């Protein structure tokens, strides 16, 4: 992973626009895709594996089983194949079976489900705290401990065209790219506080396995820890009025060093790091956890 020696605004810009850094992964929908977006956190990997290895086989199994039974009775017990109907109305054994077996299946599902929600809902020791505020219709981000805050809105079609004309490493995407992406460090636990200034919004990044309602008057918490550098998109996921479809979320996960540079470029300070412009060693700064 290439780390620029710059500790100036330029580095911040580089981190944002991807020039010079390796934003390999991408969390975005794929055309015609039928499955989850590529997971970028351990939590999302667990969601996918719970869904793919447990839920899918079970629900497909149940559906196919019901379909097979239906096809069987259609073939075997239609008027021509079976002209005289039988009259039985009870069979204790099968009734017990079709009560007990679903119970067992559900217990199995629950046994996988509970560990997953524990993982999602337990906020681990976190290095960074990120505050996300929804408003109609943009997102405000703040790293309270780092002194960084900014607003992120949808990127207009003209800006998308302009940006893509420059042949960027990560092309801007309609309805997904923002004027100012959120930048997060890779491999760090980020504690996210979500709230709203007006109606309810929801901060969601599919590839992180994160979706948290932003509600005025209360602060919801969630967390993530991104595996690898990349751009990850999300969209507001609670109906919030006219421009609900137009308040995207764009997250750039960068290395700790780049993150530190970005923070400084945004006019913030990394804890333990010398003031802006003093040319401290970013790696050391980034290594110091905030709590």
């Amino acid at each position, binding site marked *: 992973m290439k780390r620029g020696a710059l500790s100036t605004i330029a580095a911040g810009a580089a981190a944002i626009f991807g020039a010079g850094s390796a934003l390999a992964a991408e969390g975005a929908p794929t055309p015609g895709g039928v499955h989850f977006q590529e997971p970028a956190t351990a939590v999302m990997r667990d969601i996918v594996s719970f869904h793919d290895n447990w839920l899918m086989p079970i629900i497909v199994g149940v559906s196919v089983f019901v379909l097979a039974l239906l096809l069987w009775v259609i073939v075997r017990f239609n008027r021509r194949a079976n002209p005289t109907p039988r009259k039985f109305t009870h069979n204790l054994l099968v009734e017990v079976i079709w009560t007990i077996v679903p119970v067992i299946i559900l217990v199995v599902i629950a046994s996988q489900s509970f560990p997953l929600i524990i993982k999602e809902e337990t906020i681990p020791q976190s290095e960074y705290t990120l*505050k996300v505020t929804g408003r109609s219709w943009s997102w405000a981000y703040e790293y*309270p401990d780092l002194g960084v805050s900014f607003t992120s809105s949808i990127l207009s079609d003209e800006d998308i065209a302009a940006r893509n004309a420059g042949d960027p490493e990560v092309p801007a995407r309609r309805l997904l790219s923002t004027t100012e992406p959120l930048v997060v460090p890779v491999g760090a636990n980020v504690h996210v*506080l979500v*709230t709203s200034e007006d109606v309810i919004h929801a901060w969601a990044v599919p590839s992180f396995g994160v979706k948290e309602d932003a509600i005025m*008057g*209360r*602060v919801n918490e969630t967390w993530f820890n991104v595996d690898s550098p990349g751009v990850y998109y999300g969209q507001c996921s609670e109906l919030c009025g006219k421009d609900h479809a137009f308040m995207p979320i764009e997250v750039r996960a960068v290395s700790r060093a780049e993150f530190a540079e970005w923070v400084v470029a945004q006019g913030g300070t990394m804890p333990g790091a010398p003031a802006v412009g003093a040319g401290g060693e970013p790696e050391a700064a980034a290594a110091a956890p905030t709590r």
Partner: protein
Amino acid sequence: MAHGDVKHDYHLVNPSPWPLLGSIGALFLAVGGVVLMRGVGEGFFLAKGQWTLFLIGAAIMTITCIGWWGDVIKESRAGDHTPVVDIGLRYGMILFIASEVMFFVAWFWVFFEMVIFHDNRSSWIIAGDPEAMAAWANWPPPHVETFDPFQLPLMNTLILLLSGTTVTWAHHALQQDDRKGATLGLLLTVLLGLAFTYVQFGVEYPEAGFAFGNAGEVASANVYGASFFMATGFHGAHVIIGTIFLAVCLLRLISGGFSAKKHFGLEAAAWYWHFVDVVWLFLFTFVYVTPYLTMQGN
């Protein structure tokens, strides 16, 4: 009521204009209500605060109620309310009261949610509006002065409980064919109902140490006032409806309308009255007394 080939005792009601008329009344009431509260356009009929449509709706509704229940009384006199129909009426009334209970559940739900979980809210890291935080942190919220339940509210409780006994008296008297006792009991019940309404709306409400209205304008206007006034207000509305119901029964009784055996109208009114009574006991316990006792430390 076997007649002709009809060999059952159910009541096949004749075609009736009241349902349609009542629905039209509801349409006027609803449109008129929105006009009143918010205004839909300009002019006499549609501008905000105009009563015309609403009053038309209310008039239609009143006519419907009088006509409809008048028909019911006529049918009852005509003997259409056979024993099995009578049982049906009882089911109907009980279920209606059940649905009313669920309506009050909504208002109590809000109240309990606020009482029990306000602590949770203040423990959320609210990094915003300090006023909102303060509102979450305490129950009742700042600037709210609750009533002392052992003064007026206690008196009102006793009034209502007493009225519960008088209506039972009236009922038992009627069952003994003691029409005088029944009339007296019912009259007392109506008077007690009126007294309750007067004490609540006329005396207690104006003294409230909290308000119902714009939080920006009145410091004590917040969800405490809202849930207090809406819950007790809806209860009060039911007291008024119950009082009218009982008053109608009183008139019917005086005009010789009930018999010792058949007086379901009165029984329904009594059931309704007891329901109103029970709701009040819950209100008194949880909205007046418990907060007062537990919040004194605040």
